[in-house]
């Protein structure tokens, strides 16, 4: 990077030193980031005596898969995983459909009351009724202990809506103008022209919705009391924080894993799906943040 025409020995040497310091700093930061998760992984795979004596740090001692057998053999954990996958998929589809349905008309000047609609939507970004009125609404709609209590209240995020709307507005009008001349309807234009041109932003926002829903916890804590409908996060909370983890031990026999390794395996169980899609998540999220940042 430094200009070859002006080599200065002093700056080169301090530059090298700086490079080493920088690499050291980010390496330590990265290790600090990963170490807690590596420790949990090691715990989940270690034998009981090694865990009890506190010897397990970052490498599993006496490799032992029993904790995973207990977790994967636990009906409740599996049910929560399946339920969560289904719920997140349904939520993402509904949320994306609704968000696009709102975003497209809001880019059209012909839409009477557009400014009012926008105002109505933007207000929700800054003010909300709060936890209790929302809870009472869900209760009054008879949605408590229903999958819809986790899907409907968050089905449109005003901020994501604005991101998609901004993207739709950036598509050159000429592209749809000719279709309009041919008498194409708005539905046709939206489905045939706008959406195919917006795939990257749609993928990004879908992931935003999906990850938010996957990690969401508070609404399930409020709205779901039926243990059959526990999403993974709530199940994990019960298992790890409320130490219900021993319920997994039924039918495991004498070589039962200690609670520490069961908790660690449960944590890994809940983290694994995110880790599996992480490479894609990371890429799309970064680009999504850039859209948001540029938009301001």
């Amino acid at each position: 990077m430094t200009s070859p025409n002006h080599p200065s020995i002093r700056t080169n040497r301090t530059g090298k030193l700086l490079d080493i310091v920088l690499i050291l700093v980010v390496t330590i930061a990265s290790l600090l980031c990963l170490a807690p998760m590596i420790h949990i992984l090691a715990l989940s795979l270690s034998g009981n005596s090694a865990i009890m004596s506190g010897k397990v740090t970052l490498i599993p001692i006496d490799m032992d898969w029993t904790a995973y057998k207990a977790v994967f053999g636990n009906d409740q954990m599996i049910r929560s995983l399946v339920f969560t996958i289904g719920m997140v998929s349904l939520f993402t589809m509904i949320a994306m459909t609704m968000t696009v349905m709102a975003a497209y008309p809001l880019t059209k000047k012909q839409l009477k009351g557009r400014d009012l609609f926008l105002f109505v939507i933007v207000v929700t970004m800054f003010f909300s009724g709060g936890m209790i009125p929302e809870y009472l609404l869900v209760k009054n709609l008879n949605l408590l202990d229903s999958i819809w209590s986790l899907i409907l209240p968050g089905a449109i995020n005003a901020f994501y809506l604005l991101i998609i709307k901004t993207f739709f507005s950036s598509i050159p009008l000429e592209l749809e103008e000719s279709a309009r001349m041919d008498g194409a309807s708005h539905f046709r234009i939206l489905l045939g022209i706008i959406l195919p041109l917006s795939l990257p932003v749609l993928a990004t926002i879908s992931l935003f919705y999906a990850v938010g829903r996957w990690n969401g916890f508070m609404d399930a804590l409020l709205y779901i009391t039926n243990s059959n409908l526990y999403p993974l996060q709530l199940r994990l909370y019960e298992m790890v924080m409320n130490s219900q983890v021993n319920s997994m031990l039924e039918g495991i026999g004498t070589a039962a894993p200690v609670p520490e390794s069961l908790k660690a395996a449960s944590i890994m169980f809940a983290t694994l799906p995110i880790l599996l899609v992480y490479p894609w998540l990371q890429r799309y999220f970064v680009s999504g943040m850039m859209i948001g940042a540029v938009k301001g």
Partner: protein
Amino acid sequence: MAISTKPMRRTAPRLSFRSLLREWQLYILILVPLMFFVTFKYVPMFGAVIAFKEYNIFKGIWESPWVGFETFREVFQMQGFYLALRNTFMLNLLDLLVSFPLPIILAIVLNELRVQWFKKGVQMVLYLPHFISWVIIGGIAIQLLSTNTGIVNNVLKSFNIQAIPFLTEPILWVFTYLGIGIWQSAGWGTIIYLAALTGINKDLYEAADVDGASRVRKIWHITMPGIKPTIIILLIINIGHMASIGFDRPFVLSNPLVTDVSEVISTYVYKTGIQSARYTIATAIGLFQAVIGLIFLLSADFISRKVNDQGIW
């Protein structure tokens, strides 16, 4: 667009029915989303009027009698409310002090890395905690930091150092809360600065090279001024959010031994409203926070307009 279509409509009236049909579709499209906003956002907003009523489940929200500010008077006499309010501001302020500068430093460091694959790999690792839910982070925290079985205390014990109650001693809990916040957000927080850094004119660095400027000087005189506007706007946004706090993080990290410092407005509303079913009290607390939060946000926006000539949204 309106200019180009209007004359066409006038000259070709036969198209008007079809074009009207086309516009109908816009209203049909936006109908369901608008119903969503009314039902799930505005109904609760107006539902918050129960803070001014003596709510009776059988009479419903509208039939329940008005009591004015009676509920708020009651709230302002609750010690727990002041504690939660104090903790909310305290944790937010400390969080801002320790969590705000780190992403800036980290972003500058990342920006100085020359080996691209190394930089990409580091970013991948640093962003990861952002995608881990607070429930999982809370579980990890307990496994790492608990006094009896946590690895950190096990290591300390092996050096004959007394176990440190990271999660159960109030003052230490605050540090734990802040540290975990850094762990979760410092990496992800760099993105917005890295985006700002790509906007800095490369010619500036080349000119500095010609002048024989060292890298530290270039960071100080080019990089820092380049991201200064971003720093200021993010600082203002953060101050605007000072009065509101998320639920998950304090909830999963807290425990009965540290409620003196860990109880914040959101968890307090949950406890009074959901667990004790005192709906009007909890709604009033929530409403109070929402109004204070809005005042903070609008002030932040006002300041931002003064300082940066642009609002924060």
